[in-house]
């Protein structure tokens, strides 16, 4: 658990995807198992890390991470490099699967137990410890600090906490419309700070 400095994921690289990931993923789309094993090495710590961050439960996270990685194999041919980076594509799948699991479990979960999870400031603090790579992590931290508190909370509670904007609104005691807007302008500010160009 935690950042692994020796692993390829710990590289300080300003771009979105580790080098070669797009090409490897396209090879996976053509049924290349060797390429899938390379892709696995790069992706597994990220997929598992993200899913674990959202779900918190190791056993559930392991199941979901397995689903996601198999899904990467299954639908790699549908990855379209001109629509975004390979890493964004995979992490979008991972995040959605994690969120699906949260929402499916939600119906059966005790409301009070959920309320207990709503501890403001928690996600960002934990996340800042988990950020990988020195430069890249420092940059993300700096850019997150650049947001207003409500922007930062709206973005991180939703993303790392797995909350819907309605839940975030309840959590931060702000009107729905405000939270939606903060999510958008917060991400725009973050995007510009990080220099995301596509």
């Amino acid at each position: 658990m935690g950042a692994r400095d020796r692993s390829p994921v710990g590289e300080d690289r300003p771009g979105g995807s580790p080098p070669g990931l797009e090409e490897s993923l396209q090879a996976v789309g053509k049924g290349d198992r060797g390429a899938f094993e390379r892709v696995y090495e790069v992706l597994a710590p990220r997929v598992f890390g993200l899913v674990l961050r959202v779900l918190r439960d190791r056993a559930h996270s392991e199941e979901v991470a397995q689903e996601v990685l198999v899904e990467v194999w299954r639908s790699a041919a549908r990855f379209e490099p001109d629509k975004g980076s390979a890493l964004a594509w995979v992490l979008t799948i991972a995040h959605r699967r994690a969120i699906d699991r949260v929402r499916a479990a939600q119906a059966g979960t005790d409301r009070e137990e959920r309320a207990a999870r709503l501890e403001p400031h928690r996600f960002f603090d934990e996340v800042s410890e988990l950020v990988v790579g020195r430069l890249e992590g420092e940059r993300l931290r700096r850019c997150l600090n650049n947001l207003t508190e409500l922007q930062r909370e709206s973005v991180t509670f939703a993303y790392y906490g797995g909350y819907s904007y309605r839940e975030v609104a309840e959590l931060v005691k702000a009107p729905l419309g405000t939270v939606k807007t903060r999510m958008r302008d917060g991400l725009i500010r973050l995007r510009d700070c990080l220099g995301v160009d596509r």
Partner: protein
Amino acid sequence: MKRREGGFDPHTLAGAYALDAIDDEGERRRFERHLAGCAECAQETATLGETVARLGAAVVAEPPPGLRERVLAEIEQVRQLPPTVPPAPLARRVWRVTWRPWLAAVSVTAALAVVAGLGVTTVQARQELEQARRVGQQIAAVLSADDARAVTAPAAVSSAGSGRGRGMLVLSRSQGALVFWAAGLGDPPAGRVYQLWQLAPGRITSAGLLASSGSGGTVPVLSTIRADAEQVGVTVEPAGGSRQPSSTPLLLVDMPVA
């Protein structure tokens, strides 16, 4: 503030969407429909998605030891999906961008024309409307098909006073159907109608009557492509139409082969 909380202003949802924070399925679908028609919003949402991925990339955790073996074993059993439809060549894309606005216009025109020509009972009107809606959808399907091909051809004789007319044919082999309409033909003589035909070697079959659009053209007609048909043609026929053409065609359009 022109929208209240209950209202739907898709633009403000781009952030929540990128964060997977819309838990209302209907709301998410509406936003996705909006994206399909708003290039700027799609572009913004894509960049926000990339930004969100940076948040995701910031967390790593050592995967459990057995995961790799389980994943590699499982993919042995999993059939890979084919890629989504390959992108159309550039020329075709331009063509489709140019023609897409026709989708809505054409199907609405078709529905309105049917309604306008009714003057019948409401039950019938409702059935006709339903029919028009279905036809409109089929027409839209042909026009937006990936293999849709369009051809236009000038009318062989000029219509009275309104310059030369043109026939427009859009055909999709994957839909097995064609859509035809004409512009600038002028109204047919009193008691006569325009009729559309499909011409195969040695065989001509009716493809329906062409109703006037009220502006010298006709309403689009949908027709199933007949085997071996090579051309479509328009003739002037007595009211009600004919079994076989009784006059020389006003215009002929070659059907694109593939």
